[in-house]
């Protein structure tokens, strides 16, 4: 049983799934589902479509270089059946898969580091710049009770934001 990869999105195609197209120059294109087939027919480039693996790889969203990628490959050479080797391989598959998933999670965490702080910074900036949309500046001047008294207090970023939201 050979598990093929989709030409468009690079997902695994199990037997009995998807569709395959053989061009008149005998090139085979396999697709995991009609979504990928339709995108191919529309002549879309998988490198430019954001949900494909090819795009994610190219733009550093996924791991690109890893030693776990060396195990799964197309082997075009006959292998003599050996019960022990098969057993060991089946054991190794689970272990390698676990290692890869862990590494991928680490890669994702690394990539997402600092995102929350960045979002918060941007939100604070937007609030400062466009507070006039919520409350007219004249109204704030006329009624001093609306503005907070200017006292220098050491507060963390988040608390300062909450105060502004209340007014």
């Amino acid at each position: 049983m050979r598990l093929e990869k989709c030409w468009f999105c690079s997902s695994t195609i199990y037997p009995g799934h998807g569709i395959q197209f053989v061009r008149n120059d005998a090139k085979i294109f396999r697709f995991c589902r009609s979504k990928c087939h339709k995108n191919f027919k529309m002549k879309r480039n998988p490198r430019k479509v954001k949900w494909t693996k090819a795009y994610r790889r190219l733009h550093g969203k996924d791991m690109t270089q890893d030693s776990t990628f060396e195990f799964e490959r197309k082997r075009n050479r006959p292998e003599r059946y050996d019960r022990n080797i098969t057993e060991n391989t089946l054991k190794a598959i689970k272990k390698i898969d676990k290692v890869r998933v862990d590494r991928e999670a680490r890669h994702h965490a690394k990539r997402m580091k600092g995102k929350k702080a960045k979002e918060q910074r941007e939100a604070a900036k937007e609030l400062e710049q466009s507070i006039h949309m919520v409350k007219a500046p004249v109204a704030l001047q006329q009624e001093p009770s609306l503005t907070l008294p200017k006292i220098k207090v050491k507060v963390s970023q988040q608390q300062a934001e909450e105060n502004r939201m209340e007014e």
Partner: protein
Amino acid sequence: MGGKCPHRKVKKRRLSHKTDRRSKFLRKGDDAVYEELQKPDAENKPLPVDEDLPGMGQYYCLHCDRYFATVAVRDEHFKTKKHKKRVKQMLGPAPHTQLDADLAAGMGMPDNGPKLMSM
């Protein structure tokens, strides 16, 4: 590559897509054209005479995989935006292949074993 549609009055939509549909399967894919272009001296090979093709198959545009009736028409084609766009595309990175898809899926390079016969 739709041809001119004689009845359309609207200037922008004058191209007919009927011929495009008809010749869809005759035209080469991007990767086939790219491979053809990568071959050395692909440009100056004498073209085989084929009476079924326009201009006996002598005036051919490699990039767009099209035959033209005369040299003049072909040279006119070389000036079009479509052709220039195509040339630019073919100068870029190689089109997506099944191997690229496999590599993106986390597979290694295919293992073909040792070479049995030395060329």
